[in-house]
């Protein structure tokens, strides 16, 4: 910077300031420092004159800092005169004269302990509210289902087919791949550890029971929660942001019936199908590893499998699947409708949707395990 932005000279009781250079946004940092420095000289002077003649560029930043400087003295009841400002810049200074007159709203200070306690309390309340929201969504979906059963013509078949394509059909390749790998890994681990006891054959029992009862459906449910649950939340959330859901409501449609019921029913239907496909792929993967790694021929594998598993194991897995689909759908749709105006809230609700639905799917699985154990399945 060639020119000094602000120089000062004390003449008796009169402070004479001479400004120069560019009083513009790019120099605002230096300018503010210069202004603050000169303001420090304030007590010595009775009156002040500011000569702006040397300034060749002037914008709102400069105008505001000049205003701040003059206010410094006028607030103390002294006189500050600005001279030498070009005609066309006077309007800007005039404009700045009116701004920042009221003190800005002070942010409230809170005790950090109180704040963290409050956050903890709010978290608890939010958890309770979440459960309430899910119950409400479940009720609304049940109601809509009842209405649709009374008037089946109102049901959105096209939307259902479209969703079924997205949620079930398009998910098949990735589900096949993941469950195949999981089945293969379980089989390999089983053979590796059972071999120490010479009991490789029992790895087939391990794969069969684990896949059919638990892993098949659980892996598929987690995949679907991440894949389709998140997309439901994001879809409904952005529709909410763009007032599409309000538009539906004002046209006399029930968003639950039009948007949510088909999506949830599709999940309830799709999850058992995907769980079945997934379980088969896992058994296939397990068999392949048993053959290539464990040296069990496919005939032995199948014979052992038919001994080890029964229809009950298969039923246990399949009965759980639609309930998991329901949980994922309810959580995803309820979170979608809680999206507010900002992009950030869309992200938060989508994260919540996936985390909560995976959590609830695992909790549900545990409850089913207790239930099936107590009825001897």
């Amino acid at each position, binding site marked *: 910077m060639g020119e000094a932005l602000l120089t000062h000279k004390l003449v008796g009781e009169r402070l004479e300031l001479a400004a120069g250079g560019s009083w513009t946004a790019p120099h605002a940092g230096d300018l503010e420092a210069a202004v603050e420095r000169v303001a420090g000289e304030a007590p010595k002077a009775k009156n002040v004159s500011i000569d702006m003649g040397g300034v060749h560029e002037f914008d709102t930043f400069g105008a505001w*800092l000049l205003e701040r400087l003059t206010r410094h003295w006028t607030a103390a009841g002294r006189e500050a005169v600005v001279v030498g400002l070009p005609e066309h810049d006077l309007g800007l200074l005039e404009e700045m004269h009116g*701004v920042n007159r009221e003190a800005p709203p002070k942010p409230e200070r809170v005790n950090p302990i109180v704040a963290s306690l409050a956050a903890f309390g709010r978290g608890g309340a939010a958890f309770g509210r979440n459960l309430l929201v899910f119950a409400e969504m479940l009720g609304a979906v049940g109601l809509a289902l009842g209405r649709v059963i009374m008037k089946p013509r109102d049901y959105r078949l096209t939307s259902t087919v479209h969703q079924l394509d997205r949620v079930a059909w398009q998910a098949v390749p990735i589900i096949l791949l993941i469950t195949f790998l999981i089945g293969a890994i379980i089989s390999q681990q089983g053979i590796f550890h059972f071999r120490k006891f010479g009991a490789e054959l029992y790895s087939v029992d391990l794969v069969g029971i684990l896949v059919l009862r638990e892993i098949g459906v659980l892996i598929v449910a987690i995949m679907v929660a991440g894949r389709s649950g998140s997309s439901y939340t994001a879809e409904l959330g952005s529709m909410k942001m763009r007032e599409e859901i309000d538009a539906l409501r004002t046209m006399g449609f029930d968003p639950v019936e039009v948007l949510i019921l088909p999506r949830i029913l599709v999940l309830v239907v799709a999850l058992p199908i995907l769980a079945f496909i997934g379980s088969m792929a896992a058994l296939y993967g397990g068999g392949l590893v048993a053959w290539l790694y464990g040296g069990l021929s496919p005939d032995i594998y199948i014979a052992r499998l038919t001994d080890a598993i029964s229809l009950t194991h298969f039923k246990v897995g399949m009965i759980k699947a639609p309930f998991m689909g329901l949980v994922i759908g309810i959580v995803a749709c309820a979170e979608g409708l809680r999206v*507010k105006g900002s992009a950030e809230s869309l992200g938060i609700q989508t994260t919540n949707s996936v985390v909560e639905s995976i959590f609830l799917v695992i909790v549900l699985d545990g409850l089913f395990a207790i239930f099936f154990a107590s009825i001897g399945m």
Partner: protein
Amino acid sequence: MSEPSPAIKVRDLVVGFGDQTVLNHLDLDVRAAEILGVVGASGAGKSVLLRTIIGLLPRRHGSIEVLGTDLAHADEEARRALERRWGILFQQGALFSSLTAKQNIQFPMRENLDISQKLMDEMAIAKLEMVGLTPQDGGKFPSELSGGMTKRVALARALALDPEILFLDEPTSGLDPISAGDFDELIRTLQQTLEITVFMVTHDLESLYTACDRIAVLADGKVVADGPIPVMLESEHPWVRAYFQGKRGGMLAERQIGA
């Protein structure tokens, strides 16, 4: 009289998507410290022109000089320097929805200037008050603002760095006539106090009459007419005639002549 060099100089510009040509060898000058209104039928390429000038859309041919710099040949640094010298008001405001109004205005300052938080707060409030809002509005999030307030906050953000050129994309669309009139007046006064060049894409006839110094009409991918209102009223181009002499335009024209 020698003309000062234009703030924006567009020469022989061609922009298209796929096999569709939107702007076809277009020439346009925006003089320094004037308000230029760009009008044209829906789909005539007004917003495309604006987005091409600010570098959001690629061009096929031609040159665009903004404040003497051609973005296509500028390096990263020159580009950023230029981007600091203009402000843009998008049609929907395009406020960052996770920041408050005040933080939205401070965003360009924080990124580009080295100034204290205190000054930044004061400047944000000053800008808010300049566009007719109160300091209390600064704490609100975009989702809590009305349509008119959103536009005002977006204008304040566009003005955050005291730009030399202000691009406005349909600034009054979606506002009621009274708010739209206020907004026109606001742009006019701000342009006069801050001495900025304004490039305004608009559909609003009233804005053209009250705010603009000069009007450019886009049709068939070209500027078919440009000049102040009286020139527009005398134009022989069918679209210009239909626009300015039509039912709505005619009323304003009579009022203008009567006044």
